[in-house]
């Protein structure tokens, strides 16, 4: 007979909770008209164009696009193109002043400073605080600080909604470690020692594998460098290069030592895919790279190490312990004429539900903390829970993996060439100083314009 005790307040609370849960499923046009609350159907009938980079995030949006259209009544044209081409396309179209898209996924670690300086993005700050535009269910406050920092320009304006973060983690082959009776390394020195012990080129086993290819290798280097508690530039405005400091040179020496001693021959030309190939064939004992590689490594049709992969935090350096991160978000061009509809799409893509799905498939880690702690979400993980736990462990020790500057690609090419030269036997101090001197005028010029 407990229902007799049901007070009016409790009944209202329950109804409100139910309503909150059901809101996305209901057509709430009338509710909005009466109360001015958030309404997914407010911009019904509009159509928007979205550009995304090929990858798990785009796959997910494509798969659930119908759901968005039903929820909002907005039709969404989706163009999915490979990363490099997508960045070229968005840059050139934004520069033309008449982009053909209303929403695109921005790679913060490459494009942040560029879009900011060119003032290409629409300022959504006011909308994020407007309950009519951003529902409470979006849990804006759950967005992690690094994500919010990425989405916020140096003038304090928020010009995108953070979607995913990519940390660096250590993948290790449990079988190979067990054979030599070793534990996963906790520090860079331990990692070097373990790599040397595990390295067995005669039997085709590499102790360690990591990016050596120019440009791609810079992010591995910045991961090592974070162990000295340092980034590649200062946080000043304009930023100053820090790639020739004693710590930067020490990190470069470590890079050289590890990759020339315990990595396979030809590592100079390895991007992540060559590393991945070797690791998934069970031919590399350790691999330090982005967190996105768990799904293929745990896929029986592609990998020979299914169930044998260990996931660990990147080893700590002599001075600090960090995991470098990169990330992406959803941004609206200032020139778009359908900003409101595009904003709803951005909310949907970066919201709790879609980012939880992204986590479950291993397609990326949300720039949020709630999905990583949500047992219901974690229960449906398609990859080992150890991976998600490691990703959650990376968050508190995260540090940006690339400098927030305009010529990021040129930076990566210049420093990357120096790192490649190290693998060919060049001296760390000489190369880092030369590359820094070479890049300095380019950076200075990019900050003047």
């Amino acid at each position, binding site marked *: 007979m407990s229902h007799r005790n049901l007070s009016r307040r409790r009944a209202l609370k329950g109804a409100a909770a139910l309503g909150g849960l059901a809101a996305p499923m209901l057509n709430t046009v009338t509710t909005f008209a009466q109360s001015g609350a958030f309404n997914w159907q407010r911009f019904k009938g509009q159509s928007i164009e979205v550009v995304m980079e090929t990858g798990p995030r785009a796959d997910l949006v494509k798969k659930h696009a119908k759901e968005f259209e039903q929820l909002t009544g907005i039709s969404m044209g989706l163009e999915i193109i490979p990363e490099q081409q997508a960045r070229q396309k968005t840059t050139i179209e934004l520069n033309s002043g008449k982009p053909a898209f209303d929403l695109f996924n921005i790679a913060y670690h490459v494009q942040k400073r560029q879009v900011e300086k*060119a003032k290409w993005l629409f300022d959504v700050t006011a909308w994020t605080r407007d309950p009519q535009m951003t529902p409470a269910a979006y849990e804006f406050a759950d967005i992690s600080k690094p994500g919010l920092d990425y989405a916020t320009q140096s003038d304090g304006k928020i010009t995108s909604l953070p979607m995913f973060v990519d940390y660096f983690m250590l993948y290790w082959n449990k079988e190979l470690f067990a054979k030599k009776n070793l534990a996963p390394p906790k520090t860079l020195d331990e990692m070097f020692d373990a790599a040397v012990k595990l390295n067995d080129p005669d039997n085709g086993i590499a102790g360690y594998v990591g990016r050596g290819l120019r440009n791609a290798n810079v992010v591995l280097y910045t991961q090592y460098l974070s162990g000295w508690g340092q980034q590649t530039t200062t946080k000043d405005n304009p930023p100053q290069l820090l790639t020739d400091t004693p710590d930067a040179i020490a990190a470069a020496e470590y890079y050289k030592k590890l990759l020339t001693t315990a990595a396979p021959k*030809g590592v100079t030309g390895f991007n992540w895919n060559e590393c991945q190939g070797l690791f998934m064939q069970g031919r590399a004992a350790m691999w330090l790279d982005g967190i996105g590689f768990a799904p293929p490594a745990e896929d029986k049709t592609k990998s020979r190490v299914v169930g044998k992969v260990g996931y660990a935090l990147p080893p700590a350096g002599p001075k600090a312990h960090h995991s470098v991160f990169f990330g992406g978000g959803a941004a609206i061009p200032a020139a778009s004429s359908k900003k409101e509809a595009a904003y709803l799409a951005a909310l949907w893509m970066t919201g709790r539900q879609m980012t939880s799905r992204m986590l479950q498939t291993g397609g990326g880690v949300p720039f949020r903390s709630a999905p990583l702690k949500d047992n219901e979400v974690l229960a449906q993980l398609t990859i080992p829970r150890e991976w998600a736990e490691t990703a959650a462990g990376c968050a508190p020790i995260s540090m940006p993996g690339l400098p927030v500057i305009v010529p990021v*690609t040129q930076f990566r090419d210049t420093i990357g060439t120096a790192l490649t030269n190290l693998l060919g036997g060049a001296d760390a101090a000489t190369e880092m100083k030369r590359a820094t001197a070479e890049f300095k005028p380019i950076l200075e010029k990019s900050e003047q314009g």
Partner: protein
Amino acid sequence: MAGVDISAGTAARRSDDRRLRPYLAFIWPALVVCTALIIFPWLFTIWMSLNDWHIGSARTFIGLENYIKLATDRRFLESIGHTFYFTVLAVFLPLVLGTLSALVFHKKFRGRGFFRTLFIMPMMATPVAVSLVWTMMFHPQLGVLNYLLSLVGLPPSQWVFATGTVIPSLVLVEIWLWTPFVMIIVLGGLASLPNEPYEAALIDGASQWQMFWNITYPLVLPFLVVAMIIRTIDALKAFETIWVICNGGPGTASETLNVYLYAQAFAYNQVGTASAVVVVFFAIIVALSLVLLWARQKAKWA
């Protein structure tokens, strides 16, 4: 007399003009297309090369500064060297091998048609797809090439993964792709050769080598020069294979002008610098074409 001549000449010219005038209108479509697609982009490129122009920033006129910077840019100068190294190998080797295979396939033997078809297959494949396959074959640990080397007891190579071997390895792909092309041209040449000189040579007791060197080679030379011109243009243009297989790396060891240009234009968004590179590249190509045309004149059948 003279006056009469002049007036007669002018009259004739006038009537010529009148006759031509209706036809002049037919030039317009071609002229418009040429101006829009060739002349205007060229003038615009030259103008861009005189500006400091970075996508996303303001443009400023800087005169020849882009060119002056290029003259001291280590990467640019090295890329010219790589371009020549790559081009020489990627022209010469397919020419030699293409000629050899043409000589083989010119002989009559069982299944010649089938083997000819098989041999020209690589040419029909998409360069990007081919490059992806070769990238996997080049892999120093997992690739099939090192496995093949190990079968014959040779030490493994690092192929495109080491500075010293990257360009020769890329040339290997070019050879595989383009030798059949040279072969087809030379086969066409061989088929057109007269029989009499060979009959005369046989009567005179000439050896196979003498017949090749004194009859076949000079007669086929004009075809070889055509093949060389087309191959040179193709090799200078080569981009997909280099970009897909090794991105111009390791480091910048296989960065040709094309790859450098791509980086400047589409990775660094330096439109001004990239335009200057294009202009220099164009000058190089024009100079090379002149040399090749001169060679073609020389090689004509006397």
